[in-house]
């Protein structure tokens, strides 16, 4: 019977819409805490920060290279631990088209300079004074490392300490052909 069939479809449609809406609501709430502005596969938000030598680093200038962003602070112990590893692997991969940009969390120039000389850092270090880049990348826990491929896409987001092995693997995955 046509009328009956139509009723069936209408009811199914209404219930389906409601279930989808409720399901979406519950799903979004459940995953709210883990929401990252930054999704793997998405375009890495462009930014520009000035390093301690006064040189401006703009992410889009590094297109064609694999870029690692590393968010850190001097008070963060795992950040300190991974610095030598980053330094070593940077030396290895530098000539293979890998750039490391290390982003400090709004600390003083004095502290950052001391830190650089303590660890003898070879890669550029910039200070995110207004925390706008940190916010654009939705970084909440330190250290956080973002690996960006030569086309500007986010390939990997890593929270926590990195070892040399991990760095070697991740660098290889983003290095230009």
């Amino acid at each position, binding site marked *: *019977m046509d009328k*009956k069939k139509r*009723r*069936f479809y209408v*009811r*199914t449609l*209404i*219930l389906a819409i*409601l279930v989808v*809406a*409720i399901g*979406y*609501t*519950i799903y*979004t*709430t*459940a995953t*709210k805490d883990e929401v990252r502005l930054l999704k793997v596969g998405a375009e890495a*938000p*462009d*930014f*520009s*920060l000035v390093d301690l030598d006064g040189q401006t680093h*703009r*992410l*889009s200038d590094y297109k064609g290279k694999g870029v690692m962003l590393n968010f850190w*602070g*001097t*008070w963060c112990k795992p950040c300190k631990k991974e610095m030598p590893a980053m330094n070593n692997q940077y030396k290895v991969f530098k000539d293979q088209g890998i750039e490391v940009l290390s982003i400090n*969390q*709004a*600390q*003083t*120039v*004095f*502290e950052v300079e*001391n830190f650089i000389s303590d660890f003898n850092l070879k890669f550029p270090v*910039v200070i*995110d*004074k*207004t*925390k*706008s*880049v940190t*916010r*654009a990348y939705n970084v909440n826990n330190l250290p956080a490392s973002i690996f960006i491929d030569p086309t500007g896409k986010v390939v990997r987001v890593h929270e926590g300490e990195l070892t040399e092995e991990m760095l070697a693997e991740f660098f290889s995955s983003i290095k230009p052909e």
Partner: protein
Amino acid sequence: MKKIICECGHENPEGTTLCEKCGSPLTEEEKSKKLADMRYEGTAIRSKTYNKTIIDKIWNFFSSVKVGVAIIIITLVAAGIGTFLPQVIYVSLTEYQDAAAAYKAAYGTFGSIYYKLGLADIYSSWWFQTLIGMLGISIIVASLDRGIPLYKSLKNQRVKRHENFLKRQRIFASGEMSAEEADKAFDLTEAKMKEMKYNVRREEGALLAEKGRFARWGPYINHVGLIIFLFGVMLRLMPGFYIDKTLWIREGETMAIPGMEGFYLESKKFTFETYSKDEQKEEFNESKKAVNAVAKNYQTDVKLFKAPDDAVPGDTSNLTLVKEMPIIVNKPLKYDGYALYQMDFRLNELKTMHFDLIDKKSEKSLGSVAIDLTNPEKEYKVGKDSKVVLKKYFPDFAGFEDGEPQTASPLPNNPAFIFVMYTPETPKGETSFVAIKQTLEPLGTTKYKMKFSAVDTRNVSGLTVRKDKTLMILMLGGIVFMLGVTIGSYWSHRRLWLLKTKDGRLLMASHTNKNWFSMKKDLDAVTEYAHLPVYVDQHDEDQKAEDAEKKSKDKEKEGDNI
């Protein structure tokens, strides 16, 4: 599908209790009642008629008023249990690893279970949202199932109803009358009812006067309001509709505003004022504790900056000033749909520390040094011939680890320094580690020391950044809801039927969904004017006769408003 064929020949869908055309009772149950059940005009409630597929079964479940009421009660009880312990946003987590640990420590096993069940953050727990969602489905399905047939039935109602229908109305009258008298009574009734703003329709030998039909839509309108409201709340979870973030900003700082891309805020000053003694009432001053304890003002003077549209994050070279104003409690800075509220503060965070370079023996000062903790320098000149070199700075000194001083955070809660002091007497330099209430001389005893003399502090403002695009939707939902309640409460749907029978009687019947007292006033007026037979209230009669049955009747009345 089965049809029920009425005596009048009309085919009614299954489940109908009163014939759609003439109003005669169709079921045994309905026939056994003295008065007709007019709640849904005797139409078939859709859900009750089909029950074949799984979809029908789900539909019927949600269509039930009993189920709806049960969901409401469960929701209420759950929300009630949610008040047993503080919700997670009001719990200080600083001392604990996470919220679960905090609940366990404070409330034991009960707290642990409470947290695991999601009661500690009840509005975000999946099962509470499921309940609310089910309530939404119930509201929609139950309204559709009842509202649509009711609408159709009222839209298509006939003027001429069967005598059985009229007899079974609460208000009924019957009187012998000649044809001419009856015609005259019809004319007069029409005139009087029109005067009282009723719509009057006449068919051969029958009259229907009706007023305020829209009053029947009240409950459905307020359900629409509720659904709009729930939809608005749901929208808050969609990106871009709702932002609620916190920004801690220190005096003199310029920070990116979280959730508000391309905007920066500079805090110029935070002010916390209390009432002075003479501004307060005497009773306040009597208590020592209360003196100066009453807050008068919390205020952050800010500048709002916007970066050019093509600027990327971090590029603050071309900021333009948008607004400069104080943010005071309840007086937020509003811009472009965003509002910045004064919410919190911390007073007296260390900003600059002053030291004197003194000879330990003579306590003679060679001069002073001011260290700006937001921008320490490498070298400070003291007097003409001396200098202090700052080697290291630890803003939040937390002890030594492997001989290395550690800082626990970037905040200047417990600053510590390593100085090297050069004076004409000690040209090679003397190293000293200086923390609050602690001086170490790691490389041997020194002749000079850095003596702490004073601090400058600054205040920190806690601001809330908020954007809420759903507010208008919530407001609309609220207005529609109230509109429905008002319509349902203050208007009533009144009808009067007249029927001229072949055997020379004039029948009158009347129905209203509420406020029978006013209906009767209308009826009294028209009865007198048109010389209609005297009516009786069959419900009143019944009540007098059946006082014992009163209780069960009251039960039936519940749910009348659905």
